[in-house]
């Protein structure tokens, strides 16, 4: 896993506090946070930053929720503030680049993002930074062959990049399915990779269309870049299932007809007799009261 984490580990402030003291009696030692910034661009549109915050609990990294971080572009100043983001229960926070840093963005094709956490009652202050160059992927498809080109912005022109690893896959609900057995491709000197689509007759919904995705993941230079393209290479697929059919495992209003017929006819017959017998009692009673 080539993750672009930059760990900033601060020192423990209150080390060696006697274990017998409860957390209420003494300030607990503050935890260390590890902050990582990830850069994402999808379909060459708006870039976003995903900040992940973790801390070590019993030797394992656990996500930390509710950490507010300030983010800056290139330098920590009022004019280059990207904004602040608070992590969710998965320890993640996402932010988009605001228009306010347009000027700074224009100064270079390479940028550094800074994240700072001030520290709170539970955690020490923490920082992270990430530097990325601007790049993009072009995705072309011809007759079940996919060509992806990786370009990097050099000064003012896009130039092909060699040696970038990227994945070409079919987008699926829980993960992206590689288009063939090759898990990842590396660009040649023209910045190109090409892949044959080997997922014949993969289900593609009612219209048979599937979404292809080419993506650079956790690249040291470019971050995470992806492009998508919808093609009609999938098999038309209309799901069938027994939901809401009359079955023994359906809900009460979908009980099988035969079962209802049998059950209710028995029920009506028996209770019909019983009601008749109760009426019979009233008849007997009537005869009795006539005698009085």
């Amino acid at each position, binding site marked *: 896993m080539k993750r672009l984490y930059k760990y900033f580990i601060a020192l423990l402030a209150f080390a060696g506090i006697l274990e017998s003291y409860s957390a209420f009696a003494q300030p607990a030692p503050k935890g260390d946070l590890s902050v990582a910034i990830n850069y994402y661009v*999808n379909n060459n549109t708006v870039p976003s930053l995903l900040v992940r915050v973790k801390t070590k609990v019993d030797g394992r990294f656990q996500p930390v929720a509710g950490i507010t971080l300030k983010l800056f572009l290139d330098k920590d100043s009022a004019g280059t503030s990207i904004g602040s983001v608070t992590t969710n229960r998965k320890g993640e926070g996402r932010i988009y680049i605001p228009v306010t840093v347009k000027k700074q963005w224009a100064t270079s094709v390479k940028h550094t993002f800074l994240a700072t956490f001030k520290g709170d009652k539970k955690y020490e202050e923490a920082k992270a930074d990430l530097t990325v160059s601007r790049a993009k992927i072009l995705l072309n498809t011809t007759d079940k062959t996919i060509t992806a080109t990786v370009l990097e912005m050099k000064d003012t022109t896009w130039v092909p990049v060699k040696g970038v690893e990227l994945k070409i896959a079919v987008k699926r609900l829980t993960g992206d399915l590689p288009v063939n057995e090759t898990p990842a491709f590396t660009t040649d000197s023209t910045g190109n990779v090409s892949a044959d689509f080997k997922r014949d007759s993969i289900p593609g919904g009612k219209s048979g269309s599937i979404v292809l995705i080419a993506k650079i993941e956790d690249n040291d230079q470019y971050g995470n870049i992806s492009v998508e393209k919808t093609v009609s290479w999938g098999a038309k697929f209309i799901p069938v299932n027994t939901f809401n059919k009359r079955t023994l495992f359906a809900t009460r209003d979908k009980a099988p007809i035969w079962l209802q017929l049998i059950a209710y006819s028995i029920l009506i017959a028996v209770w019909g007799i019983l009601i008749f017998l109760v009426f019979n009692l009233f008849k007997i009673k009537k005869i009795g009261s006539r005698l009085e």
Partner: protein
Amino acid sequence: MEKGNNSRRDFLLTGLITAGLISGCAPKADPFEAGASDIAVASGKKVKLLSVDGEEIEVDEAFLKPVPHMPPVSNTEARIGIPGKKFVMVIDLSRCKNLKKCQSACNHAHELNPGENWIKVDPMQDAEHTAPYWEPTTCMHCDEPPCVKVCPVDATFKRQDGIVLIDSDRCIGCRFCMAACPYSTRVFNWGAPEIAPAIAAQPYSCETSIPQKKGTVGKCDFCADMTRMGELPHCVSACPNGVFAFGDINEDSVSNGAETFRFSDLIKDKGGYRLMEDLGTKPSVYYLPPVSRNFPFESGLENDKVQNK
């Protein structure tokens, strides 16, 4: 591609994130990472953002929430499930060494009463001279679920996406489903579960199965809330060895987080099977046999002693 009024369900139906709302961008534009953050309904409110080329562009606000605000669906909606989906799990026995990370992640995520496990990892040895292996079991989410057949009050139900869930607000605690389940997957809250009062006070959600309630049945729910967001169940993402793979059989794909497989190929190449096929329950959980193992069986014994003393 102005499909701004797509309902959340339609999104999941197609599985294609096509609701990009940026004007003046590349065709078929979806500005953001696929997945959770896109499952939102366009609000119509536009926000100005900086594009990668340094241009100002307008984006619908609904797509900008750092994490989509997903209120739990109503229990009526949770009974229907997600149209067009049919969830399956593949458990690769050759990769399991009884680490039980799946179990602890599941217990944590569902706020289970201590001692209660929805995922069990059983040491299996089918015959004297066959090799032992570890077999994690979840709810099988059978297509013909015997537990649902016997439920007297519709408290447990089969959804159109294949998931079998429990409505704890309906369950009368007769435990017939527990007797009916051949996989012994169901557990009962014999007493009041030991959970934080704030969580216990929440209204019950069928999809998160939280909070568990005294006198009702609980079981693996395939993390229906996670699958609704297009994310993997907790056990799948917690397993460091990629034992579990989860996906939509209608897309013929399953993923363990790191790798994504074509389901039909995986089953074909590795000889996948289901448990107790002869009972006719038609489970949604497939197993890959413990061949060419990554770990010896013995490596899991240590962990078993701790958990089953």
